[in-house]
């Protein structure tokens, strides 16, 4: 085990969220495929997305997309802007703050209709 710095943990999370998003993509391809058999099959499956635990998972999916996006922007900025490499720690902090600022309110809007209707 290597005790890496913040950059290493963000890199690991970037990989994990990337795989997670890919996994959801496969699920999504599978459920839209059901439309081909008729609307009733597809509607039957929609109970899955209205299910409270599944909605929580969807909130985590949104988190994965947001983190992957913000961190991706950080990596791109470092590739193209020399000063960004000098301010690596500041960029890490901005990435983490931006992620929570968007992700936590999204939880309110996504989970409220399911848990407090």
């Amino acid at each position, binding site marked *: *085990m*290597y*005790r*890496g*710095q*913040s*950059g*290493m943990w963000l*890199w690991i999370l970037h990989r994990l969220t990337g795989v997670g998003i890919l996994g959801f993509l496969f699920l999504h391809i599978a459920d839209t495929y059901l439309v081909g058999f008729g609307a009733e099959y597809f509607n039957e499956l929609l109970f899955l997305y209205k299910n409270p635990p599944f909605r929580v998972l969807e909130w985590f999916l949104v988190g994965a997309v947001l983190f992957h996006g913000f961190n991706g922007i950080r*990596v791109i900025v*470092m*590739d*193209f802007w*020399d000063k960004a*490499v*000098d301010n*690596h720690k500041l960029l890490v902090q901005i990435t983490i703050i931006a992620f929570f600022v968007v992700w936590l309110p999204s939880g309110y809007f996504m989970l409220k209709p399911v848990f407090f209707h």
Partner: protein
Amino acid sequence: MATQVTLKILRYDPEKDKKAHFETYEVEADPLDRILDVLNTVKWYKDGSLTYRRSCAHGVCGSDAMRINGRNRLACKVLVRDVGGDTGKKIQIEPMLGFKILRDLVVDMDPFFEKYKSIKPYLINYEDAPASSERLQSAEDREIFDETTKCILCGACSGSCPPYWSNQDFIGPAAIVNAHRFIFDSRDQGSDERLAILGQGEGVFRCRTVYNCTDACPRDIPVTKAIEQIRRAMLYNR
């Protein structure tokens, strides 16, 4: 004042062991002793079979890079108190990741040096040097690659790099740093050759900007920055 220090060292003898295993040693050390001094105490007075590399013992030769408490460091540049050894914390010492372990803390550096040689780490200039003087360079031009001249080829950066652990063909940060030293040298004419090598699949674009290398470098070389500068030199063709 001498205190009792506990060392947990990863041991591996290819003739006896199937797998590497930890062994613990208690030795007396001063908080201002270096980890290398403590390893010497173990080797000289406790267990002569303990094997590690060291040469100058002053942070110049780069022989004693190893993982100390999970991070690549030179054993001759880390004090016992730096890693809390004087406050009763165990000091864990392992060989660097990404290299084949030959014995105990000694790793096989041959592939590392092959990668280093592959980037042509020497001045290339196809014109004859002026007969009356050296190839002159302004202080400003010298400054551009000043940081990367400091590399001592200890391997701490490459051994801290996740893409280097998982991909044995990746050229690694140390080779890239040494390419940087010549690519940005105004007297050198081999930049295109080196950029062609580094632009291949296993070159600079394998870097994932993890930053472990910058933290691990005992010479404080901004390794990630050097890698990014080479990438930009390729992208913008400069």
